[in-house]
């Protein structure tokens, strides 16, 4: 491996800017770190270069641990967005800078300079000053300069940001050619997905300091695992669907799922439909693909090769389309469609026209959190709960919706009777006295993920994770990973062993802890720290939560016996959000 990052973390003012990032980049690989501004990608690059220290974790280059080695001795080449050429030096002096520092003889320097200038196609420009070159030429000089000392790793920090489209394309090609010719391991940071697609062997997508997904461009595009990647990498329509034994059920139509994993139980899922996978036709019968709903064309934009449409789906169809942010940041519930010239010739549309909408391909996100339902004894209380700031923030970040639901018997102690309907997605209840009883009432009637939310709860900076019973382990990890992808918080697994203090020699316990960590990493891409405590589970968790503000607990349970009694301290009137993941033991 050329570059190995192990749980790299960097905080600025208590906020994790780079949050537990682990990554291996192979020899000669062209790796692109892609993410919106503020996602921590540049900080991570600077950490690899040695210009920024890390608070936690290790960095190795070619097997050599360089975590505490300065930038000077790391042997990397770095190219900046604004070129960062030395303006008082000629092109020749700029390129030879690294060689002069190393006291390389003049003849060798000149030879190397000629070689590099040829590589970046700038022969004969030796004696120019940077001010006499165009932006594209300056960046070529910067690339040549960064390669002069034959670094093992080339790092590019948004190198095309300041250039216009034509030159950008040209320079991309040059850099890719240079990279292939030298076979040098390269990391490029960008927020431009076209750039990432055009250049990368593999792409790593960052958001809120976390490395969400890593993969080949095509895999990431066609099979994203998270909402963020689905919507950031190209356009995507997110729909709430149900996974059934037959396939994916959207708005009354069942579409065969791409991956044929049989559903153990019916549940709500988030489905991704790419705009180019949507078909429109004059009538349902004319569709070649699965019918989704009828709709009205809202907007038609011609962009040259493609036509971009927005279609408002009929309300009667009750299509569970999730809102996405429009160009002006406002959330809109319109289906995005792109059509090729060929499709346009077959059926041309204008705004206001009624069409039938079909879907060719659906991808289901493996995320366990689909939507939220605020649940209370009266409709007003449920409405109020659905407007809790933290809940709204979570829903907005997850690009999902908050429904409401009224359970009149919820507040009644020891109420018998059934729930009013099936539970869909994550159920939310307010934290109050006798909350543990309500939670048990809901869990016994089929609620699988239950969020207990105190009024005015703050966004968590730390998420504590624990599960009781192995059956809930995998689900708890999956839910935790999903939450942590949307919240800039650190994840801590709290292992709790009965008894006092002899746990240090409790080998099975420690193994369980390490297993949990590696499963989280391997199966869910979740990096978490581990903590050990001793005592009764619910008590220890309550104690741990009381230790610091802005914490959240995700706890997995299998056995509901004496649930209310055990969790009374933790839930009744607690000041922290608790997400209960309930899975029956098989």
């Amino acid at each position, binding site marked *: 491996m050329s570059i190995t990052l192990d749980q790299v973390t960097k905080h600025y003012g208590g906020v994790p800017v780079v949050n537990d990032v682990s990554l291996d980049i192979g020899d000669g690989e062209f790796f692109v770190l892609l993410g919106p501004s503020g996602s921590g990608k540049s900080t991570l690059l*600077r950490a690899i*270069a*040695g*210009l920024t220290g890390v608070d936690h974790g290790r960095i190795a280059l070619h097997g050599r641990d360089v975590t505490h080695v*300065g*930038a*000077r*001795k*790391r042997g*990397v*080449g*770095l190219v*900046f967005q*604004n070129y*960062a050429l*030395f*303006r*008082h*030096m*000629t092109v020749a*002096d700029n390129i030879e*800078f*690294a060689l002069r*520092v*190393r006291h390389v003889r003049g003849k060798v320097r000149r030879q190397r300079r000629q070689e590099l200038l040829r590589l970046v196609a700038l022969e004969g420009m030796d*004696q*120019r*000053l940077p*001010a*006499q070159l165009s932006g594209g030429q300056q960046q070529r000089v*910067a690339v040549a*300069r*960064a390669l*002069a*000392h034959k670094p093992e790793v080339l790092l590019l920090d948004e190198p095309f940001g300041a250039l216009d489209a034509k030159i950008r394309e040209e320079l991309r090609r040059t850099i890719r050619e240079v990279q292939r010719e030298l076979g040098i391991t390269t990391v490029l940071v960008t927020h431009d997905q076209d750039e990432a697609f055009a250049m990368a062997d593999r792409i790593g997508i960052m958001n809120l300091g976390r490395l969400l997904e890593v993969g080949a461009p095509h895999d990431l595009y066609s099979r994203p695992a998270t909402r963020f990647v689905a919507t950031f990498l190209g356009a995507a329509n997110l729909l709430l669907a149900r996974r059934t034994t037959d396939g994916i059920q959207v708005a009354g139509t069942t579409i065969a799922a791409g991956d044929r994993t049989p559903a153990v139980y019916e549940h709500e899922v988030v489905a991704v439909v790419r705009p180019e996978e949507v078909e429109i036709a004059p009538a349902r019968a004319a569709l070649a693909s699965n019918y989704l709903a009828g709709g009205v064309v809202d907007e038609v934009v011609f962009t040259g090769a493609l036509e971009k449409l927005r279609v408002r789906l009929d309300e009667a169809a009750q299509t569970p389309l999730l809102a996405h942010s429009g160009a002006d940041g406002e959330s809109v519930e319109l289906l995005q469609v792109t059509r090729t010239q060929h499709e346009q010739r077959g059926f041309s549309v204008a705004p206001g026209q009624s069409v039938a909408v079909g879907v060719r391909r659906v991808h289901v996100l493996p995320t366990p959190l689909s939507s939220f339902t605020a649940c209370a004894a009266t409709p007003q209380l449920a409405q109020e709960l659905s407007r809790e700031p933290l809940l709204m923030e979570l829903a907005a970040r997850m690009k999902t919706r908050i429904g409401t639901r009224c359970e009149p018997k919820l507040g009644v102690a020891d109420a018998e009777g059934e729930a009013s309907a099936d539970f869909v997605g994550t159920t939310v209840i307010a934290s109050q006295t006798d909350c543990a009883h309500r939670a048990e009432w809901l869990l016994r009637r089929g609620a699988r993920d239950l969020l207990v939310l105190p009024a005015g709860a703050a966004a968590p900076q730390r998420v504590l994770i624990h599960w009781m019973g192995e059956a809930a382990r995998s689900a708890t990890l999956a839910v935790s990973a999903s939450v942590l992808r949307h919240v800039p918080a650190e994840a801590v697994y709290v292992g709790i062993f009965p008894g006092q203090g002899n746990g240090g020699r409790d080998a099975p316990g420690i193994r369980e802890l390490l297993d949990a960590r590696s499963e989280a990493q391997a199966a869910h891409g979740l990096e978490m720290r581990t903590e050990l405590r001793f005592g009764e589970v619910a008590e220890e968790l309550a104690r741990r939560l009381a230790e610091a503000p802005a914490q959240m607990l995700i706890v997995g349970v299998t056995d509901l016996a004496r649930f209310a009694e055990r969790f009374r301290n933790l839930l009744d009137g607690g000041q922290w959000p608790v997400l209960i993941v309930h899975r029956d033991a098989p």
Partner: protein
Amino acid sequence: MSLRAPSVLPGFGLTFGFTTFFLSAMVLLPLAAMVLAAGSMHWSDFVHVVFSARALGSYKLSFGASFLAASINVVFGFIIAWTLVRYEFPGRKLIDALIDMPFALPTAVSGIALTTVFAQSGWIGRYLEPLGIKVAYTWLGVTLALTLISMPFAVRAVQPALLEVQRDLEDAAETLGAGRFYVFRRIILPTVLPALLTGFTLSFARAVGEYGSVIFIAGNLPMKTEITPLLIVIHLEQFDYQGAAALGLVMLVMSFTVLFAINLLQAWGRRRHLLGANS
């Protein structure tokens, strides 16, 4: 120089006229009057006044101490500006504002303050005395006063230039393997050099013209701690206007020469910087 160039202020004719009028009334005419006054002297009188041992001593002190003060200020002004630009610390804004104090203070006040502190019985002077260092009433005191009074010029000249030195340049140099001293010498210094020269010029010009603060701490011993502006005042008090004008002319010529030389140096540096030369 199009007369129709769009502009906020009315017309080139009016603004240029005002500029020349202002410059003439405030700068050129008084200077010309001084030259005329000195010119009306007899040649031998002029030489007598200007090359008297006392006058020569005062030139040496005035220009020597000013040169020294400006040099000191370039070094320490750079360090102060660096601290203010590069570090974030509580009280930074306050210190930034304090830099301008010598501007705002009547120079006589600075002189009295310095004398109080550095006199033989003063707060600092009493500790320097046993070491055999006398500050007040020596050339050292003169230099000290001039340094204090011209310090803001150096700091304010360098500050904006340092703000423009991008951190990326230092980062780039560091990843290329350069050590701190190398980065400073090859990257930072060349970039701020023009500003440093400007700071030097302004400091020097201010120091040469300084009068108020120096006379308190200098002691004003002829030949030893007497600065040229003071000698001019002494001539004036004896109603020797021509003698004063003659000394003034000498200062004018010398100051002009120094400023001209530094400007040439800067122009040369700029040309090298922007248009390129083979290195």
